[in-house]
């Protein structure tokens, strides 16, 4: 071979070896770091964790913590891949639904031994929130926050203009509808300029739950989907559909898509919609963006039989079974999901801490908007969770939602949807193994 070919070949070989070494090194943990924690979250939320970790490392100089940020959409997949590859983190951040995916695949280390050894008190956590992360009397994750999806933000100026009293937490569907009908404003051509209500995304669960409906026979150990057979399903779904098509207080999906691709919360911020259903997480954005009117929050209305119920978000930290540093991981969790973490979370106003004393303190109830913030403390009592099955997500998004799309479009009634869903749900029973 001539000089050039030989030289070139040598270079290629060198590059391959360096590249392979580099890939290998990337796979290994950084020098000195011996704990890895994974989380999702935007910059502001992530900063809380970064600060907490810095404080923890100062208090525990022998432990180094590596934070791995994963986008929420790929979170579970990436974690499962890492577990399969043997490079999983020690501590993972989970929320009420992806917790189930990981728990049912036996990924978590039971925390009871650590809790008992340290006499770690669980009394200060909201029992409803802790309960989600508990199975078979074993705790699998320590809660960090809870987020009842029950917050109806309302535009005070719109209520004043319609001469309506502000909603009380005690109101029910009938009152909600009556108020809504007075809040709709149209212009001279009949086009709606102000809608009464919109939800952050297609949130039909609170309507289902407050009509007394439920998903499965049992949340922790579901054996059968009962949602399509439950009269609460028809009542709740039909009411939401009626809001759009019969009473016309809420924009139908096709009208929604025509509001110029604006997000639903933008519609509340610019006054196009008078009431907005979401969770407390919208507060920072509303505080920043809303300048033209005063706003406050009220709890989701009671159902026709007086039932108050809605879904919830919420998150916590757990230890993976595959971890090699479980004791250190436990120390980290105690800190970031304990008082220190809860206080920091409360101060940023980002979420409601899962610790009762911190929630009920000036750290959280800081007097800033919304004035009725203490409502969410009461709301935690009424939260409902989705059943813990491996295929909950598939049944929800793949079986139920496509049929419900037709209800929201006005093509089917809720009763017809229930009849269509019954056989489909029968062929896909909950999988818990």
């Amino acid at each position, binding site marked *: *071979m001539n000089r050039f*070919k030989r030289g070139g*070949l040598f270079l290629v070989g060198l590059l391959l070896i360096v590249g392979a070494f580099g890939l290998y090194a990337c796979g290994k943990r950084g020098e000195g770091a011996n704990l890895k924690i994974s989380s999702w979250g935007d910059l502001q939320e992530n900063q809380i964790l970064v600060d907490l970790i810095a404080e923890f490392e100062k208090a525990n100089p022998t432990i180094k913590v590596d934070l791995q940020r994963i986008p929420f959409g*790929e979170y*579970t*997949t990436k974690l*499962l*891949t890492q*577990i*399969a590859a043997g490079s999983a983190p020690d501590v993972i951040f989970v929320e009420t639904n992806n917790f189930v*995916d990981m728990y049912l*695949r036996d*990924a978590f280390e039971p925390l009871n031994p650590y809790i008992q050894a340290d006499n770690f008190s669980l009394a200060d956590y909201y029992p409803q929130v802790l309960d989600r992360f508990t199975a078979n009397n074993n705790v699998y994750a320590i809660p960090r926050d809870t987020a009842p999806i029950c917050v109806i933000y309302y535009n005070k100026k719109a209520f004043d203009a319609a001469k309506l009293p502000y909603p009380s937490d005690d109101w029910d569907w009938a009152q909600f509808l009556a108020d809504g009908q007075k809040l709709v404003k149209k212009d001279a051509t009949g086009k709606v300029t102000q809608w009464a209500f919109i939800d952050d995304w297609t949130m039909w669960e609170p309507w289902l739950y407050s009509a007394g409906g439920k998903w499965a026979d049992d949340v922790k150990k579901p054996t059968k989907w009962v949602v399509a*057979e439950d*009269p609460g399903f*028809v009542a709740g779904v039909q009411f939401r559909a009626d809001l759009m098509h019969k009473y016309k207080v809420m924009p139908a*999906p*096709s*009208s*929604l*898509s*025509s*509001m*110029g*691709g604006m997000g639903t919360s933008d519609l509340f911020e610019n006054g196009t919609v008078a009431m907005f259903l979401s969770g407390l997480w919208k507060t920072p954005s509303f505080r920043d963006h809303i300048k033209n009117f005063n706003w406050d929050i009220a709890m989701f209305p009671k159902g026709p039989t007086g039932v108050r119920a809605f879904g919830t978000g919420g998150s916590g930290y757990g230890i993976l079974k595959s971890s090699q540093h479980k004791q250190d991981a436990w120390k980290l969790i105690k800190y970031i999901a304990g008082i220190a973490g809860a206080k920091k979370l409360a101060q940023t106003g980002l979420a409601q801490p899962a610790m009762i004393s911190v929630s009920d303190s000036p750290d959280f109830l800081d007097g800033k908007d919304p004035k009725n913030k203490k409502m969410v403390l009461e709301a935690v009592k009424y939260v409902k969770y989705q059943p813990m099955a*491996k*295929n909950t*997500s*598939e049944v929800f*998004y*793949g079986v139920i*939602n*496509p*049929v419900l*799309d*037709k209800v929201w*479009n006005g*093509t*089917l*009634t809720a*009763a*017809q949807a*229930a*009849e*269509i869903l*019954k*056989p*489909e749900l*029968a*062929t896909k029973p909950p999988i818990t193994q």
Partner: protein
Amino acid sequence: MATLTPLRRKEAISAYLFIAPFLLWLIFLMGGPILAAFFLSFCEWDLIGQLHYVGFHNFNEMFGFAKLTSVHQIITQGPVTLTSITTNAGAVLTLPSPSVFQEPATLAVLQGGPSGVMIQNLATVHGFLGFLLKTFGFTLLPNDPRFWSAMYNTAYITFLSVPIGMVLSVVVALLMNQKLKGIEAYRAIYYLPSVLGSGVAMAVLWKWIFNADSGLLNYFLSMITGIPISECPKWLASEAWAKPALIIMGFWNVGSGMIIYLAGLQGIPQTHYEAAEIDGANLWQQFWNVTLPGLSPVIFFNLIISIVFSFQIFNQVYVITDGLGGPADSTLVMVLYIYQKAFKYYQYGYASALSLVLFAVIMVATWVQFKYSKWVHYEGELKK
């Protein structure tokens, strides 16, 4: 074969070295996963659990169905709750759960399927299964209705967008083939959309264009046809119009086909046209007898490639529908369904089986095109 002289050996070695990176990539990064997917099709796996071998279970899930026969018809007048049905023959069938019907309806009582008895409201059954029920008195309950939706949606999009797209590309290529001043600028303009790609920005742009009330498309539509904007199709928000919207979106890529056809057109010898003119052919006859046959190898190539790619449409659909598959699964295409099954629902075995089926379908489609390719006229071929 020529003898392997030292020079030839040197050349051969460097040739293999040059293709070595690609070969390694092919074997390890493509071949390996493809083989793995093939074997996964016969297994069940959710990434960290055990890998179970399940034989043909996945395929049974895909293609299997239960047959439901209509044994009775009920016409209800108003709100009624049914818990059991007595058929004309006197048999009593108990429903698995009470069924409530509010409005007057014609109900078919079906026997069969996993629950034994089922009631279907004849007002809500549509499509092929509805046709079977209303005409023949039986219907089918597929084990995986979404699989059939996905195949139907993919076929619908392919068999509409490919022929129409090709015709458009050929027409545009013919137009761009004129020897006019500045024609290169037009060619560039037509090709521009393909350069912009099919990424997220494009999908957001198209979402705006297809916006039912304030989008460009409905605006122009109402201007041209006089239909008020509120009566225009709701495009991406409507089950019926979401797929046509995706098809129309695909037409903006005519430029990429145009380039290839242009090259093909310019490869047709001028002498053929002259000969045809001498024989007295008019423009249309020249097109039909000289241009098209001359272009046929290019058309054939494009047809195969377009069908293969169209069956695998994914990017635009994912971005526009946020990975959900459009209003009521109307834009759930095969690759999106495979993606959901694998990465949202962690059923890697089933997803692999689905991709195997998609592969088989594309293979068959390609084979059919080759088999019936007599119409392709290759220049310089000896007539056998």
